Structures are given as structure tokens and as C-alpha cells.
């Protein structure tokens, strides 16, 4: 009896600690959400209140009626989708070859991918600006896609390598014995087996591009401005449109949150996929 009671207390303590952690993660976002549904007059009140006195959707109406935000959303979506497709097209086969046909050079290749992840984005901004300028791709969707892909490919490569480490070599060999060429074995057997890992990598790549701010700031101006830039511009020399800014930020975060919640099982499964060989 005493034992059962002690267990319950432990359980309550663990749950309380988990709740504190979740709240500390979620608090900034909840505050953003609360601010976005406050009436304009309450947004900048001093002292600030956490909960809105009245729920108002005025901020959302304002940002949706402005011409800049929907266009920026479209740019963000186009850039993120194209970056994801391009990154996966490069990283998935590269990671497969690097892990399944291990040579000294493939190990160096993966190490180099890791190193490029460590380089601060800001230090690559200027060379990227020069490169895209010389190619005539400044302030274009393809230009920003290329810039984002350069950042996303190493991430996708490292994630996919971890997933491919868990794939037994015999699977490809069995497919080759069953009549496949190496490429057919990859396409018909390995890719379908890896679909969970590819989905996780696609999601992380998409989020990397969707949330990217620095390259978008440096490499775009009016034509292809992405949503993070437009959201930041609510704070300008003409004033701080705090309510509109939070509403735009909430709208911008929703697709990512919805997709993440929908795929949470695959994401957690995918992240631990390579940990233990089955």
C-alpha cells in the first residue's frame, strides 16, 4: 500500500516536471497567440496583460487584407516546396551511396557535410549574394531556392545517412538477384522501405526553408520577399504594428504546426529509426 502511494507521488512529480518543461517551451508561442487575438488598443498596454480582456480577430483581418502577406506566403511556399524537392533529389541518393558503398571518400564526404552545417549562415551570405548576382538570380524564386538548398542539403544528407545506416545491405542484393539493376533496386525496394525517413527529412528540410530569414533578407527585395521578411517589416521606422505582426506570425506558424502534429508518430519513429538495427 505504502509502495503504491510512493509510486503515485513519484508519478505526480514527474508529470509536474514535464508540465513545467512544456510550459517553458510553449510560453512564448502562447503569448504570441494571446497577443494576436487582443484588440489593437490592448496590444501595447502598460503593464501588458497575458490574457486578452476581449477576443478580437481584427489583427487577422488586417493582415489578410494587406496585399503583401498573401504574396509573401506564396513565395515562402514556392521556395520551401522547391527547396525540399531539390534537396531530397540530391541528398537521398547521395546518402544511400555514402552509407551503402562505404569508402574513405564517402566518409570524408559526410564529414564535409557536417562541417558545412557548422559554418555560420551569415558568413556565407556575401558569397551567395555575389554568386546569385553574377547569375542574374537575385530577388528570384530560383535564386532563393538555390541558396536554401545549399543550407538544406547537408542537413538532409546527414538525416538520410542515419536512416540508411539501418537498411541491411542484403535488401539491395536480394533485389539485384531478383532481377533488378542497382537503380531499380534503389527505386523499387529501398525507397519504399525508407518512406518514413524521407518524410521526416522532407519535413525538416521544408521547415528549414520556411523559417529561413537571413538569406531571404539578403537575397530578395520586392519581387520574391518571403513571409518572415514581411512579418519583420511590421516593425519599421513608421512604427511597430505589434498586433498585425503577431497575427501574421501565428498564421505563418500554423501550417508547420498542423503538419508536425499530423506526422508526429512518423517523426518520432523516423528519428529513432537508425538507432537500433532490426
Amino acid at each position, binding site marked *: 500500500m505504502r509502495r503504491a502511494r510512493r509510486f503515485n507521488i513519484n508519478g505526480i512529480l514527474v508529470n509536474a516536471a514535464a508540465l513545467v518543461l512544456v510550459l517553458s517551451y510553449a510560453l512564448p508561442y502562447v503569448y504570441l497567440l494571446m497577443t494576436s487575438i487582443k484588440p489593437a488598443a490592448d496590444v501595447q498596454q502598460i503593464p501588458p496583460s497575458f490574457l486578452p480582456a476581449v477576443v478580437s480577430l481584427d489583427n487577422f483581418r488586417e493582415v489578410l487584407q494587406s496585399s503583401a502577406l498573401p504574396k509573401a506566403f506564396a513565395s515562402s511556399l514556392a521556395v520551401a516546396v522547391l527547396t525540399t524537392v531539390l534537396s531530397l533529389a540530391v541528398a537521398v541518393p547521395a546518402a544511400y551511396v555514402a552509407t551503402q558503398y562505404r569508402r574513405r571518400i564517402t566518409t570524408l564526404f559526410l564529414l564535409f557535410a557536417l562541417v558545412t552545417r557548422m559554418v555560420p549562415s551569415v558568413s556565407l551570405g556575401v558569397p551567395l549574394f555575389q554568386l546569385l548576382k553574377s547569375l542574374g538570380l537575385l530577388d528570384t524564386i530560383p535564386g532563393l531556392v538555390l541558396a536554401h538548398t545549399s543550407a538544406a542539403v547537408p542537413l538532409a544528407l546527414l538525416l538520410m545517412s542515419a536512416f540508411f545506416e539501418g537498411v541491411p545491405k*542484403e535488401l539491395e*542484393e536480394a*533485389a539485384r*538477384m531478383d532481377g533488378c539493376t542497382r537503380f531499380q533496386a534503389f527505386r523499387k525496394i529501398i525507397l519504399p522501405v525508407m518512406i518514413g525517413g524521407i518524410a521526416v527529412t522532407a519535413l525538416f528540410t521544408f521547415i528549414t526553408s520556411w523559417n529561413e530569414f537571413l538569406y531571404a533578407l539578403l537575397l530578395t527585395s520586392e519581387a520574391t520577399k518571403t513571409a518572415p521578411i514581411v512579418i519583420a517589416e511590421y516593425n519599421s521606422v513608421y512604427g511597430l504594428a505589434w498586433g498585425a505582426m503577431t497575427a501574421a506570425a501565428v498564421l505563418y506558424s500554423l501550417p508547420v504546426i498542423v503538419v508536425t502534429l499530423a506526422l508526429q508518430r512518423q517523426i518520432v519513429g523516423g528519428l529513432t529509426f537508425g538507432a537500433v538495427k532490426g
Partner: protein
Amino acid sequence: MSAIELRNINKVYGNSFHALHDLSFDIRDGEFMVFVGPSGCGKSTALRMIAGLESITSGELRIGGRFVNDVDPKDRDIAMVFQSYALYPHKTVRENIAFPLQMAGLPKTEIASRVDEAARTLELTTLLDRRPALLSGGQRQRVAMGRAIVRKPAAFLMDEPLSNLDAKLRVQMRAEIASIQRKLNVTTIYVTHDQVEAMTMGDRVAVMKGGVLQQVDTPQNLYNRPDNVFVAAFIGSPSMNLYEAVLNGRTLTLGSNSFEIPERVFEYRPSLNGASNRQVIVGVRPEHMNDATIRPSSAEISAPVTLVEALGSESMVHLNIDAPWVDAGDPDTVVDIGDERAAVARFSPKSTVRAGDIARVAVDAEELHFFEPVTRTSIW
């Protein structure tokens, strides 16, 4: 015709490791050939080279008379069963078995009928719509077999297909694989490190060690007429007991024991005739050493008993023979309990010897094996 010919096959890896040395032999059409040997002997490498999954450094490989050294695995018309089964986890049993037929471009109706036929042969009919994750080890093994037999290939290659099964299922599947092979009469190469599997399944067995072929022969011949010390010790369980001995005329001296060798032995091993203090390696199988109090013999030795394992139908008696023990060179040898040099004798269960006794052991001297101490080859 699907005979497989290996001529002076060598495999040297990039790090200069010479995995296979001049492998040469023929596997006849419809024959069940077993490659057996300890870990690292090159048996799986040889199989993978025949499959086309490993390149051939030098030599010639022919399947059905066709030179296939550089032919892609998919074009060799051979099917392979892997140790891990390598089933496609995203496909059902039906789709797994049908896959090689789809790749061959067969019509759907023929694929369906051949999958059903294979499923009936392997008793998989009720499992056809399940995914591999929902199958037991034995069922997975059957699906892997199904994927191989459905193609009706020129040859089957099997790489330790039973090693992941428990002992009971292994015995059952061993018989099933052998029976399916006999029924289909397809040339089969089966790799195993288990000499019992090799002896019970193979029409012929190729014994390998350190990338070198030691002997290819029928299981009976390997057991009765081993070419060298390694084959003698590797084939048979418990292993043949091997000791250094001295032959002088007809008298064999084994440590502190001496006994006469029967005349018949010199008839079928004529090169032993006229020996004068000749050093030899003598081998005796456990079943040729008996309790002299039950089965007396003119060739008798006495040795202290270190351990008795009573198995009901027989007793394994471990003896400490005082002659120099010979290491057969099997890297997988399990050191005998107590003393790696102990000889093992297969005594009748009626024997009353106990650990600590000095046992009188009757040696069936007509069944002794003799080997050259330097070359370690059999003396005939």
C-alpha cells in the same frame, strides 16, 4: 544444363587480403553442393562471387557453360536465399514471392498461378496477404525459399539460411530444403558452418579453410577418407582425436601406450609398410574407442578419465592421453571442458567408468587414420 564450373578463382580485396586461393571444382547439374568451413574460410565469398555480388579477381566462372565473370547478378538466372532472409518489409508475402516474376515481365495470370504453386509447396497459402513483420522466423525462411523457387532458376544459392532458427526448427527445415531440392532437381550451392547440416544435406561437400579448398567429396568419403588433418577433425562430431605417434614396424606407440596395427591396415595404406621409428599423426574417431571391459580388443590403451557425459544412448568419456596433441587448425574449435587436449571416446551406456578412473580403452585399430606430420596429408 546448369552445371557450375569454377576454374582457378581468386579473390583479392583492395587491402591486399587474399580471401580465395585458386578455387577449382565443378558442381554438376542438379547437384546439392555444400560449402562448409570455419568462420573466415571464404565460403560465403565464393557463393557471393557465383551470385555476382562480389567481383572475381582472377579465374573463370561458368554457369551452364556460359562464361559469367562479368555478368550482372540479374542476368545469371540464379536465385539466392540470404542468411537474414532479406524479405521486402513493405510487401506482402504474395508480393515478395511475385517480385522476381514481375521483374522478369511475366503475365499477371502466370505470376498468380506460380505464386500459388510455390505457396502450396511451402505451406504458405494462408499467409500470402501478411507482411514479413507478422511472420515467425520459420515462416520468413519459407517465404525466402518461395521467392527463390518461384523463378525456376538455373541454380539456387543459399547462404546459411537456417542459422537464425532455433535448433528444432533447423532440423525440420533442413529436411524440407533437401526434399524441395530433390523434387525440383535444381543445382544448389548451400553455405554453412555447421558440419551436421553439410553432411546431412549435401550430395557432395566442399570443405574450405583460410580461402583454400581442402577437399570436395561425398559426406561418406569425407568422413571415412579425409585428405588431411583439418578435414579429419572438422567433419564429425565430436571431432576425430589427433595425436603424434611413432610407428615402428607394426607397433604404434602413443605416449606411454603401444599396440599392434592389424595387417589389413598396411594393405590399404601401403606406404606405412616398413616404417622404422616413423613419426605420424594418428587419428581415431570417438566411436572407435570403447570400454575394453565390455568390448575387449588386442589394441588397448589406458588413460585417466577426466569427465563422463552420460547421454542415455551412449556416454562421452573424456580421456587424458599422454601423447602430444595435434591442433587441426580449426579457428572455431571449442576448447574441451577441463583440458583442450582431452580425447573423447563414445562408450556404451553400460560402461561404469567414472571421472578419476584409469580406463582401459579398446581401440579399433583397423579404423585408425594416419597423416604426415609435416604436410598433414593422409598417408595411403
